């Protein structure tokens, strides 16, 4: 079976399960059981319909990852399987009991811890951006002190050379590209974009430029990786705030 055939079959399988299990209040064929009961606020969302048009992935994680969700009212769901669609900036949940893929309402989510391979978990939080793109976005919390460091995973559609679309047919000239956007948040809540270079950090503190330069050098921070940014944030927290 070619790639297109496999995808069509798997999509059909998902919808068949959904047709049998998902229900409006009562389904005599497949009634809900007490496993659906919880004292927590019920997770709400829409049917997930997204169809990728281009090559490249729109997900931060291709596999369904175990996650622990915390809702805005403090309720906690310990055992859910999610994907983060970084193109739509939506969290997608697989509801095993009803066999449906649901795009969770962003308004009810506060934060979530998502497995990022080999038992390690990354903390993601819903944050209101006061700048373009304004609104609520899920960001990866890299450092959570009085000064915070956020990483916003964003997939964008970028132009590229023409290629043949194996799935939908025809020719395409764009692809999905995963972008990493770092933001440092000061104790007063102000948000500043930084990048993987020393200059972007030093520009934020023109008066302490010299001190910071010395501290970065002394701590061997080269601004090559996210870990370097975390260390730099810690130094800023300790020395400046």
């Amino acid at each position, binding site marked *: 079976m070619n790639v297109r055939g496999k995808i069509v079959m798997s999509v059909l399988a998902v919808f068949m399960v959904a047709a049998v299990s998902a229900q*409006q*209040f009562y389904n005599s064929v497949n009634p809900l059981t007490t496993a659906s*009961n919880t*004292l927590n*606020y019920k997770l709400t969302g829409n049917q997930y319909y997204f169809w990728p048009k281009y090559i490249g992935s729109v997900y931060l994680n291709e596999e369904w990852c175990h996650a622990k969700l915390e809702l805005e*009212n403090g309720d906690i769901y310990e055992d859910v399987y999610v994907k983060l669609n970084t193109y739509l900036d939506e969290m997608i949940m697989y*509801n095993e*009991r009803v066999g449906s893929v*649901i795009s969770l309402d962003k*308004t009810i989510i506060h934060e979530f811890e998502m497995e990022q391979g080999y038992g390690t978990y990354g903390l993601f939080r819903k944050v209101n951006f006061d700048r373009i793109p304004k609104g609520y976005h899920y960001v990866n919390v890299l450092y959570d002190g009085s000064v915070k460091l956020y990483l916003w995973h964003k997939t964008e559609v970028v132009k590229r050379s023409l290629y043949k679309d194996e799935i939908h047919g025809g020719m395409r000239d764009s692809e999905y590209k995963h972008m990493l956007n770092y933001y440092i948040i000061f104790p007063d809540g102000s948000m500043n974009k930084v990048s993987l270079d020393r200059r972007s950090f030093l520009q934020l503190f023109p008066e302490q430029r010299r001190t910071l330069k010395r501290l970065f050098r002394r701590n061997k921070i080269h601004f090559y990786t996210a870990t370097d940014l975390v260390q730099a944030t810690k130094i800023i927290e300790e020395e400046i705030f």
Partner: protein
Amino acid sequence: MNEKFGNISLYLSSILLLIVLTIPTKAQEQIYLFPDRSLAVSGDTIWFSISVFNSEQEEMSNVVHVQLDNMENTHISKVSVLCDNGTGTGYIPVPDSLSSGIYALRAFSLIQNSNYESEVNQRFVTVYNRFEEELFTFDFPLPENEIKYQYSTAVHIETEKEDYKKGEEVVVSLDILQDVLANTSQVIVTAGLEEASNVDFATSWYPAAHKSAVKLPVPVVEKNGILVSGKVHSAEDNQPVPNAVVILSIPDSIPYLDYCVSDSFGVFYFYLRNAFGTADIVLQALAKNSMPCTIDLFEDYIDADRLVVSEKMLNHEELVFGESVIKASYFTKLFSGYKIESSRSFAMQRQFRHPFYGEPTKTFYPDLFVDLPDFQDVSREILHGVQYRERKGETTIRLLNLGGDAVFKEEPLKLLDGIPVFDPEVFAPMGTDDIARVDVVYEKKFFGDLSFSGILSIYTKNRSLSWVDVNQSTGHFEYPCLQMQKTWSFKNHDVDNTHIPNFRRVLYRNKFDSLNGKKELRFVTSDLKGDAIIRVILIQKDQKVLYSQKIIKVE
């Protein structure tokens, strides 16, 4: 041989004892109740303070239920009080129709009600009925089970004099020893007229033994919320209905909806958080083959063992005192009128900005358009994307599906003032004059494990639930949630209008979380003559309750 056997048995029993001692015992919750009076007249409101102790702070409930029972264990009323940091205050009205006699106030948490071994705090109150003219005997609980509070000499209560006139200001100086205060978590000061036979009720508590522990459908420690549970029965044979989907809805501008699937015994439960006052709860049960059901809610009163009582003739002093408080109550009602507490008010803190169906795709306000007489016209002219059809005596509603660029094949979730509607004909007579707002969601929506092919939510101008009561498998309940929080309304100071008689029996009441040793208090005596007792209760951090009191005369 015997010696060897004895050694082995000694060895085994010491291991057993070690195991028993090392098994962690489940933290027991202990609740103390302190009413403001031990004597009430029917129609009065008894105010009380609560202290909750639990060695495991994480497991401690902050909701305490207080119920009023008579000596035959008939439940009169119950309130649920929200506590903060282990303390709380509440009030329980004494019904006007209550007969004269001794009544029990029992305070318990849901955890205590489900634990057979828990010790329930019980206090007694003498109630005089305003309309009973002749009082002779009361059934008094035997003092054998009484646990007296410890009298403390560390608390000094001083007044300027011993005898006071009616309406005179009393200045009280409190002096509590620092080492006692250091171990005190709360100080409650009360001053009021009391009769000698009631003093015991005011300075002791009676542990009540459980008759039967309530089996909780789900392990829950009530924190800022109450558990609402009940049972679904078949309307035909009264058998419990398992796997029925029970929907709870509370109409509001942002409606509340939840669901629960009944277990094998037909039991369902909901946890209502931050709900204060009396809720208009609508419960709908959906079972296999549309089986008609009936829904019962559990009241969750605590059932204590029946008290051992002895009949006691009232002596002359008690009779005179009883008659005087009844007369005083009569005149108070005559001059001040009745203050009936509004039990219908309800407030529920919103957990999220939007209703459970999220942000609507579109909101319509039909009132802004031309007058249309019925829903068919409203849907055709105003509600774009809503397909309402009446054909061959059958009414159907379908919504546009934005995800699939077509119309859903199934009925959407239809809500009328936040309550699910299963018969679309309910909407038929509604015109633009009746509808305040319509929220529509043109997407497949999930709520927990339920899914809906779009949502049509209609809010009427005149929010009436009359249509709900006629439906089968539906129950409409006025459910008491957490008690609306109110501050004590004791007039501790001079009453302005001296022409109106003042027959207050509780003259002063205050609660202090911290005191620095000395405190001056002031209150004014009422027009009632008799002994007024100034009582100071110290609730110790180690759960001991100490008290001290001073009697002054009001002539």
